[in-house]
């Protein structure tokens, strides 16, 4: 197993290189440029060109890329063009905020989704199944940024219970908790839908197998049958949970934008509009690394749970 993990880790390096090249190329292909974005609208082309030169953005693209890569290899993600802060600090703070949101929304979605999915499977065709499936369909189909706006309208604007935007306000853990409630709910919607459906179908799959019939025939208590079903459906569920957690981390751009939640998605959004290339590259590199590691962790976990798919 350790050789397998090692090989996978090595394979991650070309994946990350590829990701960074694609990001670099895409940012430069997009019209507009980083210096123009931070200079006042009134400044002329001559002034922009002068500033560009001062920043080294007049060099050929491959050279710019290699310079950046050289720094990354030494653990330096460079400095933001817009703020001139070290990118690593910005990414660190943003990642912490995003991780918290990803964990809280995943916990909510995983817990609720698994419960709903199992309930639906064991009550197939009954009203509880229909209700759970209905919730799943809504979760998957409602755009989460829209749901976010609706949550803001209800809980912030109308009821005035929870803050509409931002993170900590510097008000301690309780304030932080208040700020993260709405984005957590909004962000949990999609995985909730996905997980409910996957858990339901995985459980149904197992339920339809003959060994379940055998278990029931031998008079095993319903509770024990349930345990067997869950254990057998677990590997499939784990894969989805892992992927969903990854999506939560990287796919929260819209929700973070709606709530101005200072995470990686918000940072990405800002960096895109400011054409802040070092920040963009840094965030994506870190997120890509996370994705690769997460996939690896899920794969390893799967082999632990289900020895049948152990690799040699």
């Amino acid at each position, binding site marked *: 197993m350790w050789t397998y993990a090692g090989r996978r880790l090595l394979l991650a390096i070309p994946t990350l290189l590829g990701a960074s090249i694609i990001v670099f190329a895409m940012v430069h292909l*997009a*019209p*507009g*440029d980083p210096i*123009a*974005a*931070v*200079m*006042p*609208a*009134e*400044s*002329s*082309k*001559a*002034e*922009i*060109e002068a*500033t560009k030169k*001062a920043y080294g953005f007049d060099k050929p693209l491959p050279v710019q890329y290699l310079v950046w890569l050289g720094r990354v290899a030494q653990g330096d993600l460079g400095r933001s063009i*817009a*703020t*001139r*802060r070290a990118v690593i600090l*910005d990414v660190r*703070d943003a990642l912490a905020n995003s991780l918290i949101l990803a964990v809280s929304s995943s916990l909510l979605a995983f817990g609720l989704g698994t419960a709903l999915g199992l309930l639906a499977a064991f009550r197939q065709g009954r009203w509880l199944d229909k209700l759970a499936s209905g919730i799943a369909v809504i979760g998957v189909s409602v755009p989460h940024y829209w749901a976010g*706006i609706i949550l*803001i*309208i209800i809980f*912030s*604007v109308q*009821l*005035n*219970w*929870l*803050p*509409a*935007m*931002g*993170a*900590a*306000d*510097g*008000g301690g853990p*309780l*304030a932080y*908790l*208040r700020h993260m*409630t709405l984005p957590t709910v909004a962000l949990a919607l999609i995985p909730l839908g996905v997980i409910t459906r996957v858990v339901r179908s995985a459980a149904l799959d197992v339920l339809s197998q003959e060994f379940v019939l055998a278990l029931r025939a031998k008079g095993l208590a319903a509770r024990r049958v349930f345990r067997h079903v869950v254990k057998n459906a677990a590997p499939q569920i784990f894969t989805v949970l892992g992927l969903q957690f990854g999506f939560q981390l990287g796919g929260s751009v819209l929700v973070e*934008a*709606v*709530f*101005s939640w*200072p995470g990686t998605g*918000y*940072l990405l959004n*800002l960096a895109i*509009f*400011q*054409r802040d290339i070092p920040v963009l590259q840094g965030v994506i590199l870190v997120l890509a690394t996370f994705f690769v590691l997460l996939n690896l962790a899920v794969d390893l976990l799967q082999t632990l749970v289900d020895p049948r798919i152990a690799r040699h």
Partner: protein
Amino acid sequence: MRRVVTLLFAIVLSLSLTGLACAQGTLRIGMTASDIPYTGGQTDNGFEGFRFVGYQIYEPLIAWDLTRGDRLAPLVPGLAESWEARKDQPTKWVFKLRKGVTFHDGSPFNADAVVFSYESIKKKDAPHFDPYGSGQVSFRLASLTGITKIDDHTVEFETNKPTSFVPYQICYMLIVSPAQWNKVKDWRKFAEQPSGTGPYKVTRFVPRERLELDANKQYWDGKRRPKVDKLVLLPMPEPTTRLAALRSSQVDWIEVPPPDSIPQLKGAGFQIAMNSYPHNWTHTLRLDKEPWSNKLVRKAANYAVDRVGICKNLLNDTCIPATGVVYKGHPWFGKPKETYEYNPEKAKALLKQAGFDASKHPVKAVHLISTSGSGQMLPLAMNELIQKNLKDVGIDVDLQPVEWNTLLTRWRAGFKTADNEGLNAWNISWNFLEPWSGFGRFFHSKAVVPVAVNTMPYINPEADKLIDEAERTFDVAKQNEILAKLHELVVDDAPWIFVVHDQNPRALSPKVKGFVQPQSWFVDLTAVTVR
């Protein structure tokens, strides 16, 4: 089940109650900027940066009087008590500095601080040169070439030519504390612990999230000591987020509420502050190519646009119709021959006179517009209405929407690039705070791209003469007269489609009192109180 619901309810309620306890006398502002404007002196994020960060932490030698709303904000003494160009040598300006002023760090304000600040912008080899801040403001100080300290409280600026526009440039040069910089020796660090002489001083800086400032109790002007204890600035680029933050009492003041929300906000007791200020929203036309090379067609376009309809129906009266570069009542308005009201018949007649015909020979043009952007208001909806207005009289405009940053980049390059060759106009909003921004950079033949931003290009010897004359005229009243004449000329030539002047709407909580919206891009936050 019921117990779970009760428990959930209790949790939500207790969480929400903690938000009610909020500091007294704190003014919290939701800005449109996507990040906290640069706090290290020469700020960024355009005039919003000056409005909330630059002019609150720092001060220029010559400042804007923002205490009244019934007239265009004039320039008044700031950190300088008086200034004048030397009679014998009009390229030298002597500034007498205010005495007894201290920076937030306690060090004294004096001539050395002015020289230090100037060098941080203009002297590339100085150890305290700030390339970023310089990029933001250097071009606004285009005429200044040097500075000399005469004594502790007198400095002399040198200019590249005799120009009366110097005060309009000095007002953008913010004075930073040399003592504080020498403590940290790095502009990034300075930006995190900045020190100026302004009415507010920075106490907490959370990158991309919030900037907290305390009232400067030692502020030199007793009449302008802040009435609130604390000012909090929050970047909120999304209009809906700003609106929700205001309505959920997370902030007391937001910039540019969505026009649609204004009736609703008023109904809920919020105050909407508005006033004219030097802003115009126009289509800048390409003059060296058909169809806009023809003055009759340009005038026809100007008569075809229903400006009142745009302001009333689309923008809920957050703008006023523009019939020129500046608005009526502005000292530079003059008495233009043409008043471009909505008159489609006149537009059609002008087109016919120019040899065009709606059915057989329509006018065709391609205009580059933005999807959003600072000062661009509601570009998509407004442009669709304009497109329809123009279509009605026989002008076929193809709108090409691009992202704001892209529009600016393409605009700076001028029309004569491979990308822009097919275009006939761009839609960008401008400020006309001072003569160069309002006229010089667009209408002087020496300002043609890439030197400045006369992209059209507008070449008119008469305009050149008037701009030069205004620059040589040191008497403000006389200078205004010359600029009014220039304005009459430009309105008659119609190199732009003049559309609207924004009214800079901002929404304030009913708790906010004492704010006067000046005719300016900037605001005075010292008289404001929050109950």
